[in-house]
């Protein structure tokens, strides 16, 4: 199977879906780039991370729309278009910008269907770059997963590898509900096997990346490679871990999580978000609620620190959960009886 980067996989998904369906449009800042410069036929950048490369040239500026820097209007416009017949893929360049447009996301987009008695359909995808590790500092490095997940009406997706990225984005575009599609900055360069044809991965279907009866590690987005590293290190000592990547936090594949928790009784959850009200807290609470008797030890959460994301690399590395921290948490959970 051909190897592609996460960016290429996403780019393919967009190309294929825009080919297949004329109502799919892309809208955001610099999605083509160069609008209003040099005669307007320049694709200056194809998205700040290159995910939209080639789309502007191929489909033209009526379907690939560069916008001013005006997030509220971007999301609001995209939501309105979605409700009335288009299938927009809007880009929120960095998830941290959700502040200036959050009303359009959580009060409008998320609630149209419900408020209007099921009569409205908002097939909007908001693609956004999340996560720390590039020293992009406090206002360009957050994850905000739980902010979105907590809002009824939104679906929240965070692929951890190129194969998932393509399948989940195609699924998101075809899904008739609003989807917040979280792309982790550090994963854009990740390579992996990605089929050339289009395919979907259903939501609420976790992926099992390692299998073992001793301990369950739940991780998502950029924490998955670290979880796998931790699991493999522990395997050398004869400790066999199951690693589960939920892929989507809303809807969530509770069944897979509970089945493994019930089997191992020992759970570690790795989440790059800040600790309070994180996805890790949420999943932990679900497990305690539904599989308490099976637990042999308290659930351990490995999260970022309760602070804004620091700029200096030395501090940022201390902020983000690392493989050693995951292994430590696993040992704690195994050590408890």
């Amino acid at each position, binding site marked *: 199977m051909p190897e592609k980067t996460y960016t290429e996989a996403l780019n393919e998904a967009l190309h294929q879906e825009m080919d297949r369906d004329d109502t799919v449009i892309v809208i955001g*800042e*610099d999605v083509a*780039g*160069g*609008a*209003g*410069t*040099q005669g*307007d036929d*320049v*694709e*200056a*950048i194809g998205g*700040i991370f290159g995910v939209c490369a080639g789309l502007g040239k191929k489909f033209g500026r009526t379907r690939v729309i*560069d*916008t*001013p*820097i*005006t*997030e*509220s*209007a971007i999301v609001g416009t995209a939501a309105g278009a979605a409700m009335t017949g288009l299938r927009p893929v809007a880009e929120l360049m960095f998830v*941290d*910008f959700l*502040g*200036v447009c959050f009303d359009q996301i959580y009060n409008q987009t998320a609630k149209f269907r419900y408020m209007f008695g099921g009569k409205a359909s908002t097939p909007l995808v908001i693609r956004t770059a999340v996560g720390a590790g*590039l*020293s*992009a*500092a*406090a*206002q*360009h490095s957050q994850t905000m997963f739980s902010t979105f997940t907590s809002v009824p009406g939104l679906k929240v997706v965070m692929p951890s590898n190129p194969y998932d990225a393509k399948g989940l984005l195609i699924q998101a575009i075809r899904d008739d509900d609003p989807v917040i599609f979280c792309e982790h900055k550090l994963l854009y360069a990740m390579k992996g096997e990605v089929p050339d044809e289009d395919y979907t991965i259903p939501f609420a279907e976790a992926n099992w990346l390692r299998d073992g009866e001793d301990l369950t590690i739940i991780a998502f987005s950029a924490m998955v490679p670290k979880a796998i590293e931790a699991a493999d290190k522990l395997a050398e000592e004869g400790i066999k871990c199951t690693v589960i990547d939920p892929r989507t936090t809303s809807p969530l594949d509770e069944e897979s999580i509970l089945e493994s928790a019930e089997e191992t009784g020992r759970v570690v959850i790795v989440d790059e978000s800040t600790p309070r009200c994180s996805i890790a807290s949420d999943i932990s609470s679900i497990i305690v609620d539904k599989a308490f008797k099976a637990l042999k030890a308290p659930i351990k959460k490995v999260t970022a*620190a*309760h*602070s*804004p994301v*620091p*700029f*200096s*690399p*030395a*501090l940022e*590395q*201390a*902020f983000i959960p690392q493989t050693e921290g995951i292994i430590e948490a696993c040992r704690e959970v195994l050590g408890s009886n």
Partner: protein
Amino acid sequence: MKKEELLKVYKTMRTIRSFEEQCDKEFMQGNIPGFVHLYAGQEAVAVGVCSHLSDEDKIGSTHRGHGHCIAKGCDVKGMMHEIMGKADGLCKGKGGSMHIADLSKGMLGANAIVGGAPPTAVGAALTAKTLGNNTVAVAFSGDGASNQGTTFEAMNMAVVLQVPVIFVFENNGYGEHTGADYAVGSKDIAKRAEGFGLPTYKVNGTDFFDVYETAGKAIKDAREGKGPSALEADTIRFGGHFIGDPQNYRAEGELDKLRAERDCLKIFRSKVISDFDLKEEELNLIDKEVNALIEGCTKSGLAAPMPDSKELTSDVYLNY
């Protein structure tokens, strides 16, 4: 303006230019992490405005904030250390290029959120009015931010509250990679600001004197309680949106032309020599001084230690 003042202006602009050029170099060598947005080319605006401001006056800036920082008097060494993420940086390494601040100098911070600063500046102006301390606030924005909802709201709020804030829009022709011509629907930022009820001015952002004179008037009016105003400065940036931007949106030869014809430092130099009787050598001396300063800061910055990970969660709260 007196000779010393002019030399000071030149030094400040020169410091910004050299600082930015050094950042470019250091970034390309991998000594600066994260994202950096260079101000080179826009110096006349920052210095033209900030020359009228004291430490007690406040400014809010953008992600392209090094120039405003230096113009407002922030410590250059502290800035360089901060941008390199060092423990003794202006913000202890926690903010970085996009969040440089020094409240003791009235610099309310560079802001990574486009349109993030104007509302804050309005707040600073409200304090000034409430306390009656004769100070003003300046909100620097780009042409990109001029389209952001928060900017519109800030302008309206300033007019409604009649607070001493000046909105300075630096139109360098590009909002990220998109042309200002395309993104600003009304084409004329100043004219649009007028619609909010502000007196507005347009200046040539590459001519220090034009900026200085007009900004002086706007700031004086604000200090005298005559309310907020807006300034649109037509300027240029030499670099891309960020360091590493391939700048595919520029026409061929555009940058060369800009450097030849619209370099505010060149323009200033020729003007002060011809109209104010300054000498080439005096300016060259300043160039040398500034280069030495920047070199020194770079050296010390590279050698300085990174912050201790114990500092990760300090300064989140005052007490918790």
